[in-house]
C-alpha cells in the first residue's frame, strides 16, 4: 500500500468521523426523546444542538422556544412537553389535552416568546372516590422498565375518618433519585386510588377515609423489584379509649 493510498484512507476516516460526529447527536436525541422536547420540525432539519430546558425546544436560530402554554395548545405540534422527557405518546399532533382538541381547528399562533422555564407542575390532586382515577392520558410513565423504586416517603401516616387530607408520596430509586412513572396504589378504609409519580417522583392524593381502619400504600413494581409498601392509620375523632370488654 503506497503513501497515496494511506492518504486517501486517512481522508476517508476523517470524512467518516465528521459524518458520525454530525449525525450521531441528532440520532441519539431522536432516539431518546429526552432533549428538552426535541425538535421535530422538518423545516429546521432536526436538533440544533441547543440545550434547552424542559418544556422548551431549540429553534433554527439556536434559541430556545417554549413548547406551548399549560397543557399544550390545540394545533401545536407537541414535539415535546413540559416534563422534559420528550413526547409522551401524543402522536395526533394536536396538543396533549387528551382528545379535547379538535383536529380540524386552526393551529394557534406562534408560541410566546421565550421566558424562564416554568416549574414542573405536579399532577392535579386526585379526588377521593370509589373509582380509580387514571393518570392523565398525556402523561404516561417514562419510567425505565428495569428501574426499581427502593424507598418512598409519606407526607402523613394518620388520617381522620371523613376528613379530607392531602397525601404526598415521593418515590426514589436506589441512588436516591426521584423516579417518574411509578404507579402508587392507595387502598383501604373506603379509599381506592391509583396514580403515577411525576418527573419529581412525586404523586399527590386527596384522601378522605370513610371508615376507621388502615390504608395500604403500595408501589406497583416490576416483578424483579422488591415490593415495598406502608400502612397508614385511620381513626375517628380522638377520644381516650375506654374498653368495653366484659371485664
Amino acid at each position: 500500500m503506497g503513501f497515496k493510498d494511506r492518504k486517501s484512507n486517512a481522508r476517508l476516516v476523517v470524512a467518516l468521523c465528521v459524518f458520525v460526529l454530525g449525525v450521531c447527536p441528532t440520532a441519539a436525541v431522536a432516539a431518546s426523546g429526552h432533549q428538552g422536547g426535541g425538535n421535530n420540525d422538518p423545516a429546521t432539519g432536526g436538533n440544533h444542538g441547543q440545550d434547552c430546558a424542559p418544556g422548551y425546544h431549540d429553534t433554527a436560530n439556536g434559541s430556545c422556544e417554549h413548547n406551548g402554554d399549560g397543557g399544550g395548545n390545540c394545533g401545536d405540534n407537541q414535539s415535546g412537553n413540559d416534563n422534559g422527557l420528550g413526547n409522551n405518546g401524543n402522536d395526533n399532533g394536536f396538543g396533549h389535552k387528551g382528545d379535547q382538541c379538535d383536529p380540524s381547528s386552526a393551529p394557534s399562533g406562534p408560541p410566546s416568546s421565550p421566558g424562564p422555564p416554568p416549574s414542573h407542575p405536579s399532577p392535579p390532586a386526585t379526588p377521593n372516590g370509589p373509582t380509580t382515577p387514571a393518570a392523565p392520558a398525556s402523561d404516561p410513565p417514562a419510567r425505565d422498565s428495569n428501574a426499581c423504586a427502593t424507598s418512598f416517603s409519606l407526607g402523613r401516616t394518620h388520617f381522620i375518618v371523613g376528613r379530607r387530607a392531602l397525601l404526598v408520596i415521593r418515590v426514589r430509586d436506589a441512588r436516591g433519585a426521584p423516579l417518574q412513572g411509578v404507579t402508587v396504589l392507595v387502598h383501604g378504609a373506603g379509599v381506592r386510588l391509583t396514580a403515577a409519580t411525576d418527573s419529581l417522583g412525586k404523586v399527590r392524593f386527596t384522601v378522605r377515609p370513610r371508615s376507621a381502619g388502615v390504608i395500604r400504600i403500595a408501589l406497583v413494581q416490576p416483578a424483579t423489584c422488591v415490593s415495598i409498601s406502608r400502612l397508614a392509620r385511620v381513626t375517628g375523632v380522638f377520644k381516650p379509649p375506654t374498653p368495653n370488654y366484659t371485664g
Partner: protein
Amino acid sequence: MKLRAVVIWAALVGAACPVLTAAAADNAAPGQMGTAPERPVSLSGPGSEARWAYVLERTPVHAAPERSAPTITTLATSTTLGQPNLVLVLAKERDAGGRDWVLVRLAVRPNGATGWVERSALDKFQVVRTHLVVDRRSLVARLYRDRVEIFHARIGVGREGTPTPAGDFYIREEVRNVADPFYGPVAFGTSARSATLTDWPGGGFIGIHGTSEPQLLPGRVSHGCIRMRNADVLRLARLMPLGTPVTIS
C-alpha cells in the same frame, strides 16, 4: 445410581414445592395467579405459624368460597373501639372464576365461627409465631414462640355464671392508655365473645387486661375477661404481637 439420585431429588422438590407455592402466593395480589381451581391451602394452625391480615374494605363473609354462597356476616374495617380490624387467616382457595378466597376466623357468635372473604378485601398477610394458651383450670396463661414457652402468669377468669369461653381465638386489638384504671395499663381485645353477656355494651368481647384489683388474682373473678397483674400484662404486651392465636381450654 444416577437414576436413584434423580428420583430422590424429584421427590424432594415435589415435597417442597407446595410449601414454597403457598408461601409465595400468600401476598400475591388477587388475579395475579392463574385461573386453575386450587385446593384449599392451610395458612394457620394451632401451635405453629399463623397468618393474619387487616381488613382493607368492608366486605361480606360467605359460607363458602363463592359469591353466590350465603352471607354469614360483614367484616368491618375497624373494631367497636375504633381500632383497625384484623382477621386470622386459616386457609385460601381459588374459585372457578379465578378469584382468590381466604377462610378467616370471625369475631362473632357463636364462638369459633369461620367464613370466606375475597382476598382483595384484606391487606398483606402477616406472620406470627406466637401462641397464647389459657388454662382455666390451673388459672395460668402461657405464651409460646416457636412452641417454646416465653411467658407465663397467674390469671383471673370468668365466674361460674359468666364463664370465659373455651375455644380457638386470636388477638384482635391492643389498647393502651386506657381511661378506666379497671383495665390496667394495657388491654388486648380478642375475637372471643361471652356466651352469657349477650347484651354487654360493644358486643361482650373477651379481653385480656391488667387490673386495679390485683389482690383478687388468681381466681374466678371476672365477667369472662382474662385478668392479670399489671406488670404481667405489660410484659405480655412486649412479647405478644397482634394476630397471635389464643387457645382457651
